[in-house]
């Protein structure tokens, strides 16, 4: 029962509490944003390159040509720092995921 109740809580959480701090962990941030470009070949590959965590935070906050800036209301400084630290530890993916669907 306890497991079921916890599962229910987890279920309810997104509707009630996805306010500021919606990100569960760095891999959630990655899978919800970064992966769409950085794992598909449309932007430089990052996983496995062990980028400097501070640089990751600065680039994500300020953007680059072709990359949007991510505002503090979307991802906090602490969440960005955690993302940078997580990314630094990531091994290279086995293979680049091809863009979803066939080439347009």
């Amino acid at each position, binding site marked *: 029962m306890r497991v079921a109740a916890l599962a229910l809580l987890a279920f309810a959480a997104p509707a009630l509490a996805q306010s500021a701090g919606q990100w569960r962990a760095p891999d959630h941030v990655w899978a919800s944003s970064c992966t769409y470009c950085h794992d598909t070949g449309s932007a430089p590959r990052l996983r496995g390159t062990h980028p400097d965590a501070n640089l990751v935070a600065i680039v994500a906050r300020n953007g680059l040509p072709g990359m949007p800036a991510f505002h503090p*209301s979307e991802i906090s400084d602490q969440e960005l720092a955690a993302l940078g630290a997580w990314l630094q530890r990531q091994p290279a993916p086995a293979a680049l995921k091809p863009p979803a669907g066939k080439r347009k």
Partner: protein
Amino acid sequence: MSVASFLAAAGRAIGADHVIADPQGLAPFAQIMLPVPEAEHAPAGVVSPQSVEEVQALLRLAYDHKAYLWPTSTGRNFGYGTSTCATPGQVVLDLRRMNRILDVDPELCTALVEPGVTYQQLHDHLRALGLNLWLDFPAPGPLVGPTGNTLERGGGTTPYGDHFGNSCGMEVVLADGTLLRTGMGGVKDTTSWQAYRYGFGPFLDGIFTQSNFGVVTKLGLWLMPAPPAHRSGMAVWNRPEDISILIDTLRPLRFDGTIGSCGTLANDLLALASTTTRRELYDSPGAVPAEVSLRAAKAKGLGAWMYFFSVYGRPDRVASDWAVIEKAVVGAGGRLVPDVFDPMQVGELSLRTFSIFNYTGGNGLAWFSPVTPMRGRDAARQMALARQVMDAHGVDFMTGMTLNGREALNVMPLVYDRSDDAATTRHRACFEALIDAFAGAGYGFYRTGVGFMDRVAAAHGAAQMDVNRRIKRALDPAGILAPGKSGIRL
């Protein structure tokens, strides 16, 4: 009374952590992809409330301190102005922290969301609830949200591509703090807010889109039940002049529902730009010549025009609709390539369109967005007109159309390197010349970005501008909200 005193008071009201006043923090909000100077559109601060009550408090403070507020939802609006303002010195009212999904009704297939909710968040939420409902995504889907896109009257590619047309009910905070729920939302203990759009009396939702008459704090949405089957494809025509016959061939199939998707009709250069750099394609000054892009497209198995579409329904219907489309496309001189698909037409998120930034490697993007009556001759006339103006300015001709109700939205990206001042100046002149040329030919516009709003508003006539001004004076007499949005001022 100043922006600085407003920001200080705002910090006391909503917490200093949710106010940005320093130049370093503001810099990302001033970034602009449009070919206009950043300084003409730079915000002077950012405030990020988390509740309706905080929005009301900030409006009160803006009135007291004579500050102007520019509301954004996720603050993206790529190629239309991102978070920048129509005039410099406004304070961004950043609603990204208001990101609660307030309701999902699995029977009526509706949702009620706050402005900061993203498509990714809502998509994940529907999956977590085990609901097989699809969202219609705009191009930057995962990073943006339904409220901002709907309020800009943005579009997508599925049968629900008309985002405003599939919205149902708003909550709006007016400049004086009044809370308005539109449609059935005004009824005490309403049971029908997301069920019926029009309410009783005048239908007000439209005046809160592409406008500065209020701050929308909740939006109702209709969601598409996932179809039991679907099939996607690409119809290809080889000659630029085929635009006329292809539109006249596809129109009846869209109108009778055979082609369920709004789809995307791309010209050769737009299809190439996501995988080819300009330097690889044509390393010379001036616009990429038509024959160069067509030759490169044919080498990749593409043509002059590619219509990416989908059919939806029960399996027998999908097969039957597919056969009808194939016969029509082949009969009109095209060919059908099956099972090439755009993920966003089948309920999957993607950011594939972002690869267009690799074309020039710069950050320059401006969408020129005239409306095309869905007739072959009008589409052909618009393409010729655009090509002529762009060639004269040395600007590359790309277009991606969606085929909607009775119109196609002819959305043309001007892609350039914003670090190149000469290119930026040239693209601005081109954009202005395009507005004038299209308005002069009797065409209007679906949407535009900061820096071009006054010109586009003027093209729609003095009477519309005057009525908008009168509504503005009635609802926001101090002019607090977003002066200059869509050309509307006190």
